[in-house]
Each structure stands twice: as structure tokens, then as C-alpha cells.
């Protein structure tokens, strides 16, 4: 398989190459996203199924790459993006990228089909497809991208499309608030990640991740390692809802259920886990890495599972359980042994399969019964037998029971914690606690609604249309198939993924039956505990309620407080800066400009030296005095007519200065315009109020001081500007070429109508706009129209 190693190769050179499919796949999804609303307009009910063909075919294409990638080969492609700043859209398909690409396209296709039925008849479903597939493209781009900047761009695109999807039902306050919260939390993390990626680029000297990963210990031994690690972890932890940023994910359940199933369980929230797995070969293995990831991961894992059981809304239980699973993945990446890497990949796969299915089932239950509260659901098996079967299969996988793939995932997780070189005891205890709580949550959310006595629901329930059943059913089938033949079906991709995490080729052995191992014992213990916790959930919730006060200082409150103080600061700042008094705006502008300019001048250049270039004649001095006297009369005059006459004096004197310094054209224009201005003033004069003195003496003194500061700044700037000589002014070109090329002898005129004619066009436009404005203002009589 081939590789286009140089990032500079243009797309056309790659056209014959399979690797171009990588770039094509992302662009295909972007195009599909743009077309989706139009397709919806014409195809209507079948849109979901039709659009699902796109990601489904990409899934098939990626699946054909499994054998090669499992052998350790990679697919690489590059597209010049911004060569001047060394940014290329480089893409690389290795084991980790392939695993995620399969999940994104495979589950994506099922979700698009499911959404078509779930949102059937929604008036903005076209827009929904557009956002959903845009997210799919961003996520696929993220896992395929090899360039650090490209990774960041796709990362942010997933945050933005997630924002649009959570806030899809934008008329509800809760949806808007949750969307904003998710955007702010993940967006802040994204900025941290950007800083981390840039530092990585600086420290390693390369912007291609594959080159950085191959550089061994360079980053780990670099002075910037700690800042890089903190920044990358901040990005990953916010995105993957790790404690203390876990609060945004349950709130994001305001999104339509297909979004929760796709973004907030099987794909986007795993982006943080993906980044950690990706960076493991170059950043992992240090003490700080192991400590940070193991501790935060384990805390998140247990906290998430605990909070899951505190809730009774289907989707919130699932959301907290997802937080828990994400914590488990982070913990495994922190342990970092080959076994832990294998466990992390297997767990990612197992979790995506059962959690995607369970979210879709939860959406189905809500859709068909109108009830979200699991305590008010029961006995649905008779009404929705197919849904019940799928749900129970997925629940068994989530609970980690054989023979489903969830069991395989949980067994390797327990083995990895048992063999962890650091804090093994603690991690095993945390894992068993998580497994037990997860068993209880699985029963609560996916078994309880279907068994027991039938409870009345707002809507009469029945099995949903086929498009809604297909998604969870196919995922459930995968869970069974991968569970029964783990080595044959999941082995290659899990091995390839683990190889990427470890940075070296590894083989994995996945088996359903490991013999009577300690892990199996802990598994059995967790299941027993879990069943007990399920039946004793009232007690668990009682403990949770007793711990309620802790929530008052929790990170969610911190977010609320931060938002509230942001509003306070914003309104205080608005009160101060946006006072509504023109004078205050001017004062702030003048003082801050003069302050900044003055500071820069004296800090950078010291006190400027002033050289006298031309000695003024006596009549020039006279003119200057005329201008100054005119300006002062304008200021002190108590009559309007006097001020206007003085203004004219200033204008004509300035015109005379132009005459003396070789600018007859300017002088002519100035005289003409000045005359017009004075005439205009006199014409409007009688329609204007007389001068009045409103300000007190103190205010006038203050304004005078500010105005003098502004004037002094301009004087200094002009003196400096005179000193500065550009090496070769562009004017020389105009002077030399005016007659030979433009056939004009008046160079100023030639510049205006020829060399810089667009400027003149702009000037004419400004005058035209001003004329239209004047005309409209004079014609506009709102009071008269109102009377009519």
C-alpha cells in the first residue's frame, strides 16, 4: 500500500492512488451535508435511508482496509492547503484511525437512517441531516488528520456541529443553554489543545503527527513537556467529559436522541480519548501522564457510574454511564501497558456498540410511549417485543455478561487493572465499583422498562418503524458476533488500534473464556453487587440525596457562577464604556489612544529627536498664525455666524499653505469645497439652534485638557512621520510614468484618474451615499406619515 510521504504532493499526482480515498471520504461527507436539505425537499420520507448510503459505503471501503492496516501498513495522503505557512491537509490511516473511522461511518449510517424515522415530519429535518453529516465529516477528518493544525480545525468543527445539534430544538431555553455550555466547555478545551499542539510543533520541529510520533523521547525530555501535557489534557478532558468537566455531557441530552446516540456516546465524546490514545507514544509513559490519567480517569469512572444510578431519566442515566466509560478508557490509557492499550481499544469498541444501541432504544421508548422516566415504565415487552430483545441484548453487553462483546471488553479491563504496575489495588477496586454500578444502571435503563407489570404510558406503545429498529438491532448483532468470535472478528482491528496506541506493532489475543482467572472472580462479584444495587437503588439514591450539599460547590455550580460573573462584568463594563454620552466615548478614545501611542513611543524609541528641515518664511508664519487664530475663534465664538466665518478663515488659510508647497490642485479643490461648506452652513443656519453653553466650568476644563492631550499626540506623530523616509517611495513610479504611459502631464490628476482610479471610484461612491443620505433625510417625515 502506498504512501505519499511528501506533504507537498498535489492531489492530481495522487489520483491513481488508493490513499486519495482518505481525503475524498471527508469531502464526500461535506458535500452530502450541503446537499442534505435539498435531498430532503425532493425525496422526503426516504431521505434518511438515501443519505445513509454515503457513510455506509465509506464504512465498506474502510472495512476493506482492515487486513492491510492490521499488518501494520498505513495509508497516507496529502493535499496542499496553505503551503506558505507549511500547513498541508495530510491524512493518515493507521489502526487507531481505522477503528474510529469504522465507528463513525458505521454507526453514522445507522443513526442517519434512524433519525429519518425518529424526526419524521419535523419541519427542519433537512437542516438536521445537514448538521449531523457535517459533524460526521468533521469527526472523520479529526481521526484521519495527521497535521497538527488540521487536527485542531476538525476538532473545533466537531464542537461547533455539536453545538448546532444540541441546540437543534432552539426554541427551548434548556436546549440553548445546554448547547452553549457544551460549546463553552469544549471550546475552552479546544483553545488549550491548540496551544498544546503549537507547543508540540515548536518543541519537535514538525507539524506532522506521524513524524512527531516517530521521534521517540524528544517531547518527553523537552523543557516544554509539562505545559504541553497540561494543555493537551485540558483539551481531552473537557471533550471527553472527565471530572471535573463531566457536567456538560448529561445536559447535552437536550439534543434529539439520534444526536445523543451518535455524538454523545459513540463518537464525539471519544475524541478526547482518541487524542490521548494518539499522543500516547510521544507523551505517555511519564509519571505525570500515568498519575493524571489514572487518577482523573478512575475518579470519573466511579463518579459517573454513581451519578448514573442517581437518575431515573433514561437518557441521563445513559449519559452518566457514558461519562463513567470514558473515565475507564482514560484510566486504561494512563496505565499504558500493552494489555491496558488492548483493553482501552476493546472497551472503546464494546462501548460504542452497546451504548449506541441503548441510546437508540431509549429514544424509541420515549418516542413510542411519551415517557422518559424509567420508574414509570414497565412491562413493555408485550407491546414492543423486538425493541425489548435488542435492548436486553445491549444491556447484557453493558453489564459485561458472557457471551457478548461487552464481557470481553470488561474482562480485559479488569485484567489490565490487575496487572497495572501502579496503584493496582485502587484501580481494581474502582473498576469493580464501576462494573457493579454499571450492572445496576443497565438493568434500570434497558431491562426494567420491558419486564414486570405493565405501567400505563401517555402514548400507546408499539414497535417502531423498521428504520428505527434496524440501527439498534444491527449494533446488537455486532455485539453478539464479536462476543462469540472475538479473535476472528475483533482481533485484527483491536490489535491494529493497540499498535497505534503503543507505537509499535503488537498482536492481541481476545477470547470469551479465559479460564478461572481473578478477573472472572471480580466480574462475578461485580454482577452480584450490581443486582443488589439495582434492587437497593432507593437506598443508593437516599445516600446520594444526603450527599446533595456537595453539589453546591461542584463544577456545574462553578460554571454557573462563572457565567453569572461574566454577565456582571459585561454589564458593568457596558455601564462604564457605553454610557450613551458622546463626550465620554471621545474621552476614552483620545486618552487610550494617546496613552498607548505615547507608551509605545517612549518605551521603544525614547524621546524623539526633532530636526528642522525647512525654515519658514515670514508669510508662512503669518499663514500658520491665521489658521490658529481662526481655529481659536471657532472655539470661543458665541455666535454661529462668527464660528462659521472663522471656519472659512481656517479653510482658506490651509488652502494657501497648499499653494505655497507645490499643490495647486489641492488649493483649488480646497477653495471650492470651503466655499461650498460655508454656503451650506449658512443655508442650513436658520434651521439650526443657536449656540448654547451647557457644560459647567469644570467640565470645560476637563475637555480642554483631553483635547490638548489629543492635539499634542498628533503634533508628536507628525514630527515623527516627517523624520521617517521610506527607501523608495512609490511616488517615483508615478512621477516617471505619468507622461510616457498615462499621457498626462499633471501627475496628481493622473494618479486620481488612472493609477489609483479605484480610490477615486470609492470617493465618488462615498459622495453618492452621502448625497442619498442627505436627500433621504430631507424627504423623510416620519411624524407626517404617522399622522396619516
Amino acid at each position, binding site marked *: 500500500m502506498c504512501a505519499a510521504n511528501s506533504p507537498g504532493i498535489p492531489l492530481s499526482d495522487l489520483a491513481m492512488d488508493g490513499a486519495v480515498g482518505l481525503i475524498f471520504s471527508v469531502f464526500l461527507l461535506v458535500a452530502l451535508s450541503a446537499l442534505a436539505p435539498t435531498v430532503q425537499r425532493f425525496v422526503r420520507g426516504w431521505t434518511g435511508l438515501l443519505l445513509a448510503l454515503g457513510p455506509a459505503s465509506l464504512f465498506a471501503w474502510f472495512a476493506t482496509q482492515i487486513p492491510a492496516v492490521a499488518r501494520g501498513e498505513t495509508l497516507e495522503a496529502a493535499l496542499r492547503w496553505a503551503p506558505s505557512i507549511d500547513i498541508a491537509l495530510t491524512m493518515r490511516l493507521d489502526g487507531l484511525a481505522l477503528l474510529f473511522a469504522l465507528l463513525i461511518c458505521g454507526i453514522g449510517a445507522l443513526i442517519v437512517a434512524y433519525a429519518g424515522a425518529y424526526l419524521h415530519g419535523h419541519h427542519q429535518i433537512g437542516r438536521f441531516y445537514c448538521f449531523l453529516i457535517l459533524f460526521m465529516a468533521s469527526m472523520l477528518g479529526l481521526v484521519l488528520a495527521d497535521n497538527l493544525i488540521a487536527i485542531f480545525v476538525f476538532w473545533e468543527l466537531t464542537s461547533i456541529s455539536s453545538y448546532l445539534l444540541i441546540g437543534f430544538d432552539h426554541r427551548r431555553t434548556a436546549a440553548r443553554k445546554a448547547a452553549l455550555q457544551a460549546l463553552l466547555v469544549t471550546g475552552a478545551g479546544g483553545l488549550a489543545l491548540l496551544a498544546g499542539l503549537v507547543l508540540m510543533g515548536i518543541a519537535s520541529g514538525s507539524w506532522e503527527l506521524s513524524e512527531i510520533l516517530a521521534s521517540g523521547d524528544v517531547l518527553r525530555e523537552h523543557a516544554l513537556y509539562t505545559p504541553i501535557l497540561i494543555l493537551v489534557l485540558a483539551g481531552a478532558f473537557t471533550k471527553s467529559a472527565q471530572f471535573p468537566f463531566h457536567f456538560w455531557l448529561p445536559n447535552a441530552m437536550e439534543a434529539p436522541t439520534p444526536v445523543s446516540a451518535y455524538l454523545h456516546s459513540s463518537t464525539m465524546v471519544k475524541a478526547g480519548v482518541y487524542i490521548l490514545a494518539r499522543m500516547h507514544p510521544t507523551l505517555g509513559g511519564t509519571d505525570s501522564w500515568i498519575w493524571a490519567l489514572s487518577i482523573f480517569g478512575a475518579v470519573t469512572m466511579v463518579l459517573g457510574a454513581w451519578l448514573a444510578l442517581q437518575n431515573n431519566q433514561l437518557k441521563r442515566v445513559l449519559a452518566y454511564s457514558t461519562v463513567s466509560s470514558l473515565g475507564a478508557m482514560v484510566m486504561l490509557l494512563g496505565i499504558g501497558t500493552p494489555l491496558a492499550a488492548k483493553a482501552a481499544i476493546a472497551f472503546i469498541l464494546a462501548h460504542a456498540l452497546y451504548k449506541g444501541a441503548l441510546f437508540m432504544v431509549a429514544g424509541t421508548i420515549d418516542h413510542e410511549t411519551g415517557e422518559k422516566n424509567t420508574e414509570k415504565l414497565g412491562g413493555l415487552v408485550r407491546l414492543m417485543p423486538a425493541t425489548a430483545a435488542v435492548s436486553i441484548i445491549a444491556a447484557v453487553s453493558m453489564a459485561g455478561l458472557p457471551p457478548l462483546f461487552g464481557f470481553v471488553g470488561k474482562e480485559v479491563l479488569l485484567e489490565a487493572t490487575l496487572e497495572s504496575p501502579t496503584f493496582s489495588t485502587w484501580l481494581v477496586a474502582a473498576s469493580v465499583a464501576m462494573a457493579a454500578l454499571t450492572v445496576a444502571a443497565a438493568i434500570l435503563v434497558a431491562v426494567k422498562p420491558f419486564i414486570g407489570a405493565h405501567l400505563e404510558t401517555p402514548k400507546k406503545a408499539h414497535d417502531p418503524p423498521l428504520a428505527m429498529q434496524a440501527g439498534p438491532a444491527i449494533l446488537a448483532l455486532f455485539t453478539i458476533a464479536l462476543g462469540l468470535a472475538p479473535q476472528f472478528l475483533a482481533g485484527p482491528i483491536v490489535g491494529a488500534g493497540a499498535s497505534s496506541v503503543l507505537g509499535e506493532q503488537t498482536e492481541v489475543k481476545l477470547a470469551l473464556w479465559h479460564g478461572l482467572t481473578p478477573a472472572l472472580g471480580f466480574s462475578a462479584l461485580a454482577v452480584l453487587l450490581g443486582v443488589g444495587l439495582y434492587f437497593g437503588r432507593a437506598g443508593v439514591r437516599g445516600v446520594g440525596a444526603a450527599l446533595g450539599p456537595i453539589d453546591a460547590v461542584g463544577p456545574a455550580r462553578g460554571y454557573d457562577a462563572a457565567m453569572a460573573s461574566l454577565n456582571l462584568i459585561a454589564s458593568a463594563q457596558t455601564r462604564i464604556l457605553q454610557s450613551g454620552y458622546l463626550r465620554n466615548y471621545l474621552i476614552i478614545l483620545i486618552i487610550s489612544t494617546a496613552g498607548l501611542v505615547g507608551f509605545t513611543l517612549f518605551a521603544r524609541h525614547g524621546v524623539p529627536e526633532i530636526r528642522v528641515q*525647512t525654515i519658514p518664511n515670514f508669510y508662512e508664519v503669518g499663514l500658520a498664525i491665521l489658521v490658529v487664530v481662526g481655529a481659536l475663534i471657532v472655539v470661543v465664538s458665541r455666535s454661529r455666524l462668527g464660528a462659521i466665518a472663522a471656519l472659512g478663515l481656517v479653510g482658506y488659510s490651509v488652502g494657501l499653505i497648499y499653494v*505655497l508647497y507645490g499643490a495647486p490642485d489641492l488649493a483649488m479643490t480646497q477653495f471650492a469645497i470651503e466655499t461650498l*461648506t460655508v454656503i451650506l452652513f449658512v443655508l442650513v443656519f436658520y434651521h439650526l439652534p443657536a449656540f448654547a453653553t451647557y457644560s459647567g466650568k469644570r467640565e470645560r476644563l476637563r475637555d480642554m485638557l483631553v483635547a490638548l492631550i489629543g492635539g499634542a499626540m498628533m503634533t508628536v506623530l507628525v514630527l515623527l512621520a516627517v523624520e521617517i523616509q521610506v527607501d523608495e517611495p512609490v*511616488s517615483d513610479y508615478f512621477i516617471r510614468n505619468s507622461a510616457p504611459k498615462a499621457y498626462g502631464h499633471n501627475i496628481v490628476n493622473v494618479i486620481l484618474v488612472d493609477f489609483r482610479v479605484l*480610490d477615486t471610484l470609492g470617493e465618488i461612491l462615498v459622495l453618492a451615499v452621502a448625497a442619498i443620505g442627505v436627500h433621504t433625510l430631507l424627504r423623510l417625515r416620519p411624524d407626517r406619515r404617522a399622522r396619516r
Partner: protein
Amino acid sequence: MEVLLAIVIGILFACGLYMMMRRSIVKLVIGLALLGHAANLVIFVAGGLRRGAPPLVPTGADAPPELVADPLPQALVLTAIVISFGVVAFTLVLVKRTWQAVGNDDIDLMRATDT
């Protein structure tokens, strides 16, 4: 002369800004006009002063005699003069309409969009 003109420019700016800070709305327009003169002079002086010698090419010649005034700032100022006239004219009419509509010329009383 540069120093002298720099001081003149500073005074023009100070007077213009002071007038713009007055509460009486007519003074605002006059301040704006002063500011226009000051800004034009800045461009003119910053481009370098040269006495006499307008940038003209004598008939029959291809280039002007050795040293002429820089034509580029002149072209810029010419544009600026015309534009500042447009601005003043528009502001003047706006003030006239404001006065008619609001019946008051104290800017401090014009803080809200509804009058």
C-alpha cells in the same frame, strides 16, 4: 516649517476635538470640519514638504524637472477633502433633522433611541 505646521495641526486637532465634546449639537459639526482640515494637513506634511515645484510634467518632456513635490499625498488629500465635505454635509443635514425631530440640541439628552 514642519515643526510649525506640526504645532498648527496639534492646535487644529485640539480645537476640533474640544468642539466635538460640547453638548451643543451644532458645535459637533463645526468640530468635525476642523478635524477634517487637521487630518488633511497631517497627510500633506507627513509626505514631506517641498516649496514651489508642483508635480507637473512640462510640455514635451517625459518627466518633471529633478525635484518636485510628492504627488501621492496630494492625490490622497484631494480625495480626503472631498470626502470630508461629504461627511460634513451629511452630518449637517442629520443635525438639522435631529433638531426638528427632537426639538432639543443638547446631545446629553439624546441617549436613547426613542425620542
